[in-house]
């Protein structure tokens, strides 16, 4: 046995023990809540926005704010002596395996009492599985795959609307547009990045298109790291759609916008989601992003009908120096709903929290979103959750639908590239 070998063996063994100890250490003094987001990898910018939303929510829970919002006027969790919430963030790297491992680590080593967040449906799938297995409540407000709430999980709740609702809202909107402008918009093109999320969105859209009697004229999945999307756009072009429904991440939203312009692809109604809502999108494409209609759950201009939104947006602006995006706002909800439940439960026992989550009935005026409230159904999906649609005008998002909350008139049809 050489000396080097023994020394190295010792070093490795020692560091493994230290690593292991690191995992065991740290007892809880505050109420720890775990959140797994993609903080590195190509979706990291979006993950950061989610993180900001969560952080602001925690500020509001822990501090005293004069806001008409649950948990705002009190400090911390009153029923637990004002205990503060602390979010432990972890990086999923956009990978389901890492998501699961990090969720497990948060639960078992950091001793978080509940989980929020996730963003990517594939990651939430495994992270929530870990939470379920370890019997820890998981309140989600930012991943949209319908499958997540259809697994019969006991501890898993979703505050935000899913892609079934999204797809239905999209087609409702197109119908409304047909009525408003008295023009048939029956030819629909589906364009989506082909990982779990995009392909599920498309599946729902196909289903609802049939239901509403629309015709799918193009159905195009693509790889979201593509270096070039000419062939995708050419396929779109030759299908001559009235409506484009696009499910991208932000990088591909940028690339497609540029390619639409380059190849002069014009569509009367250009609808998008997710990536189009990322502030990096408008920053990157500038004027070329005008008139896209984007699905959202939130928009600062809703302050007109709901002053709370303006106030929260001001807080956000103060903290991060820009308007609150729909992505941040969405992630903002879960910590509040969870904190409310912990407060009502007056306990950190998972089953107690779960029980009161089931009884949750938060009225619409106590939450940030323009919904009727938060109330979970049998599969733990918030029955009041729905989308709004915003349109990019003048480099900003403006609420255009549903008509009753709209702040701005929708521009239709989208002007051709050469007429802009």
């Amino acid at each position, binding site marked *: 046995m050489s000396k080097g070998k023994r020394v190295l063996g010792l070093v490795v063994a020692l560091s493994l023990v230290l690593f292991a100890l690191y995992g065991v250490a740290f007892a809880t003094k505050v109420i720890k809540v775990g959140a797994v987001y993609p903080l590195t990898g190509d979706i*990291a910018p979006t993950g950061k926005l989610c993180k900001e939303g969560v952080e602001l929510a925690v500020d509001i829970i822990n501090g005293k704010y004069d806001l008409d919002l649950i948990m705002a006027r009190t400090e911390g969790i009153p029923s637990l002596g004002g205990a503060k919430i602390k979010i432990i963030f972890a990086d999923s790297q956009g990978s389901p395996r890492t998501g699961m491992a990090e969720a497990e680590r948060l639960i078992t080593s950091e001793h978080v009492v509940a989980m929020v967040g996730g963003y990517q449906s594939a990651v939430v799938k495994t992270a929530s599985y870990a939470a379920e297995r370890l019997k820890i409540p998981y309140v989600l407000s930012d991943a949209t795959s319908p499958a997540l709430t259809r697994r019969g999980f006991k501890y898993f709740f979703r505050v935000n609307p899913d892609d079934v609702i999204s797809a239905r809202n999209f087609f409702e909107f197109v119908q409304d547009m047909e009525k408003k402008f008295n023009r048939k918009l029956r030819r629909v093109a589906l364009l989506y990045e082909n990982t779990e999320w995009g392909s599920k969105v498309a599946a729902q859209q196909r289903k609802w298109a049939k239901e509403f009697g629309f015709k799918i004229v193009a159905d195009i999945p693509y790889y979201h790291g593509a270096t070039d999307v000419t062939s995708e756009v050419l396929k779109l072009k030759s299908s001559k759609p009235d409506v484009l429904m696009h499910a991208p991440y932000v990088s591909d939203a940028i690339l497609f916008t540029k390619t639409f312009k*380059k190849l002069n692809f014009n569509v009367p109604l250009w609808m998008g989601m997710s990536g189009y809502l990322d502030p990096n999108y408008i920053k990157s494409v500038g004027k070329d992003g005008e008139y896209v209609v984007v699905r959202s759950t939130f928009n600062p201009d809703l302050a007109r009908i709901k002053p709370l939104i303006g106030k929260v947006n001001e807080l956000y602006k103060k903290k991060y120096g820009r308007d609150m995006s729909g992505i941040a706002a969405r992630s903002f909800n879960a910590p509040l709903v969870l904190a409310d439940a912990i407060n009502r439960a007056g306990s950190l026992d998972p089953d107690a929290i779960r029980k009161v989550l089931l009884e949750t009935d938060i009225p619409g005026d106590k939450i940030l979103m323009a919904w009727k409230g938060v109330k979970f159904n049998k599969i733990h999906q918030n029955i009041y959750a729905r989308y709004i649609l915003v349109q990019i005008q003048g480099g900003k998002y403006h609420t255009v639908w549903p008509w009753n909350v709209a702040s701005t008139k929708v521009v239709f049809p989208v002007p051709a590239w050469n007429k802009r």
Partner: protein
Amino acid sequence: MDTTNLVQAMVSGLLLGLPYGLIAMGLSIIWGVMNIVNFAHGEFLMVSMYITLGLYTFWHFSPVMSIPVSAVILFGTGWLVYRYIVSKVMSGPMLAQVVVTFGLSAFLQGLFLFLFTGNYRTVKVSGILSQSTNIHGVYVSYPQVIASLITIVVTLFLSWFMKNTMTGRAIMATEIDRETAKLMGIDTEKVNALSFGIGLACVGIAGAILSSYYYISPYVGLLFGLMSFVIVALGGFGSITGAVIAAIIIGEVESLGGVLVGPAYKYALVFSLYLIVIFIKPRGFFGW
């Protein structure tokens, strides 16, 4: 699929392929001279795109003006990377040579993520760089045309340089037979550093011009890098014209294949074509 769209797809394939060629050319020279695959190639493209972004942000350089700056910086980077990193593994096992560039690529990604966050950025272009033109229904964007023209110019220049200058001939000689070149008094270490520099300078040029129509992020290099490996292996290592021709073929397969077979499969088509060719000609079209 009507003819206009087919023609459009072919034109787009060409305009897509040529800039690939510029990136691949750099890889090809490095591969040919040192018999090393630079797996950090795509990351250097990323670096040059950030340089272009920086020049734009601070001094309002347009991407075209950034080309020489980016090329020079990348040339220097290549020289240094060779001297202080790659040369240390040249005599080691082949695996170490492969892996060192992998480490470099992860390092660069992490570094740029750390410095500039993962945000997607673009260089705002105006004038001709933001326009496209329409020829009988076929759309051609000027920045891509410029990128393609630059590729052709660089190809011609490098081919001339390799044949007609002392330095170029020294590089060629080293590429063909390193031992003999050494015996003939060529400083092969210098040739290596030079080739690495030239290889990265190609990427520097490509990155600068690519910035005018592509977004920038720390992860942007991955697929570009991968495509350039395939292109070089297809064209045959060390061959400059081989790289360009293979790049055009790849561009066409990607573009036409995407339209005819389905966009979801376009990269599968590209890689399959590569495998088929390599099974028949193990050293690529122009390999020896």
